[in-house]
């Protein structure tokens, strides 16, 4: 692979773009013209676990971003439909890899073109300081698997490229076990953080709040079992492990409600609740949190 386009230049997209630009040509598709101009002029700086600035080609027009082999879609859930629409008819030689929270991003993209599609989830995290600067905080891996018209070998090739760029990545023949582990983890931790205002810290693993987190995880595990997914990691253990890192992590859904922005509740908890409905599994606690977070969004207006 020689050319990659990153569509969606938030924290995760920025981390991919800046790292990959060290090993291949990288184009960045942005939503705002001034963002593209800033990136093209100043490059994209990484701090934290890295300290470098990469040159990227940025534009709001996919036609100016060449003929990539790989397109990484890394938007927020709420922006995905609009972004996928802008990709329609573009990048005929590319494989598209979605890296979003929740479930269903692959289907959204697939409805807008016949590219081969890879499915991915990422556990890396960072902080976006400005349009041209992201801080690389957690160097946890991105997991990649085949989705439509792709094979385990395609997933391995993408993972290899990402590792070469300095990020962690791993390929799987079937991503669902990993994707569902993360779905249950996010549906639980992000919604609880958004409703309480608490960063994800040790309080999520002890006392009354720990009991609630465990009960939410158990509901999620029952849904996974009903749909026949054998989880790769126990989301409760992921929770405990993450809260033992020693620093408080602010889940993006908490940052969204603090800033009165739309959250990813539909793609995350909404996906889980809908899957539970289809499977005939009762998830009263996730259903409650789903309603509460949507109502909190409604309270902004």
């Amino acid at each position, binding site marked *: 692979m020689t050319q990659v386009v990153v569509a969606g230049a938030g924290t995760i997209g920025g981390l991919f773009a800046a790292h990959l630009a060290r090993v291949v040509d990288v184009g960045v598709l942005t939503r705002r013209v001034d963002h593209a101009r800033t990136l093209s002029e100043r490059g994209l700086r990484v701090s934290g676990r890295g300290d470098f600035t990469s040159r990227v080609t940025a534009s709001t027009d996919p036609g100016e971003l060449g003929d990539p082999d790989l397109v990484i879609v890394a938007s927020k859930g709420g922006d995905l439909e609009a972004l996928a629409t802008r990709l329609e008819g573009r990048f005929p030689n590319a494989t598209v890899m979605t890296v979003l929270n929740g479930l269903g991003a692959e289907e959204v993209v697939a409805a807008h073109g016949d590219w081969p599609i890879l499915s991915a989830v990422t556990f890396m995290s960072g902080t976006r300081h400005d349009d041209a600067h992201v801080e690389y905080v957690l160097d946890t891996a991105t997991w990649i698997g085949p989705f439509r018209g792709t094979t385990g070998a395609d997933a391995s090739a993408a993972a290899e490229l990402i590792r070469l760029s300095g990020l962690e990545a791993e390929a799987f023949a079937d991503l669902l076990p990993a994707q569902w582990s993360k779905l249950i983890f996010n549906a639980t931790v992000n919604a609880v953080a958004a409703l*309480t205002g608490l960063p994800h810290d040790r309080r999520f693993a002890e006392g*009354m709040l720990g009991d*609630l987190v465990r009960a939410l995880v158990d509901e999620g595990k029952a849904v996974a079992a009903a749909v026949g997914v054998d989880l790769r990691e126990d989301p409760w253990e992921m929770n405990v492990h993450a809260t033992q890192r020693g620093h408080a992590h602010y889940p993006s859904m908490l940052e969204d409600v603090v800033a009165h922005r739309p959250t990813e509740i539909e793609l995350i908890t909404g996906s889980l609740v809908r899957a539970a409905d289809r499977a005939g599994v009762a998830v*009263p*606690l996730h*259903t*409650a949190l789903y*309603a509460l977070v*949507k*109502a909190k969004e409604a309270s902004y207006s």
Partner: protein
Amino acid sequence: MKVCIVGCGAVGSLFAANLAQLDDVEVWAFDTSQPHVDAINAHGLRLSGAGDVVGNVRATTDASALPACDFGIVATKAMHTRSAIAATAHAFKEGSVATVQNGLGNEEALAEYVGNVIRGTTFPAGRIVEPGHVQWDVKGDTTLGPFEPRPATAADIERLADACTRGGMPTKAVADARGPQWRKVIFNASTNPIGALTGLTHGRVVERPDLRTLVTGLVDEGKAVAAAQGIVLDADPEELIDHAAKPEVAYDHKASMLQDVEARRSTEVDYLNGGIVRFGREHGVPTPLNQAIWALVKGVEDSWTI
């Protein structure tokens, strides 16, 4: 007779100022706010809104200044019950003490300090406008009955109810006051924290179908815990929830718990959802939704101390 209001906030002031209209009742008030106490002693305790009265009330922040009283009416926030009655119990050695507070567990706390306890539930509401002056927002009924483990006598309960009614606070003495108490607790526990967690007014909570379903889930758990104790609710809390959502009633009302959260004050969630969970455990009734809501609101309170 002498009556002492313990905790002379909005609700306490409604009782104090109205009872003070009666020639045969001497009203005292114990409160921790010096400006409020000073204003009451200087100008009387004034109510405006649903009723306009000024009551001659003797107020103090010093519990040792209280005389022996025939009745106490405790109207603090539920988390202050224990400290308030510990300070004032000496005034009620021969008397009976009623709670008109929100939540579950207040009677139990009072019974640790005084012998004759009255279980009470009150629906009138107001808010303090300035020291010595309370806006009376909503009129409503009060029910008094015995706290079964350490009850006041039926005659005393009747006497206090009669005084309240004559003073302008319609009050019924009943043999079992748990029905109205649980109806109000279930109402508060099923709606207040939803407002507090989402930021929505009562009416906006009720008009969202998914939230209304959650409210009903919470109500149903509360009803099951009440039923397991043999408590017969005096009316369905659902009716009160829908009634309050009407534009002319309380559509735009921010639940007190939402006001507490916005002001970063401790809430009464331990005595509402926490109370339902506790009684549920004692009677083998699962209450997962109340437990979840309790944990979330405690998490909110916890987030202020990072």
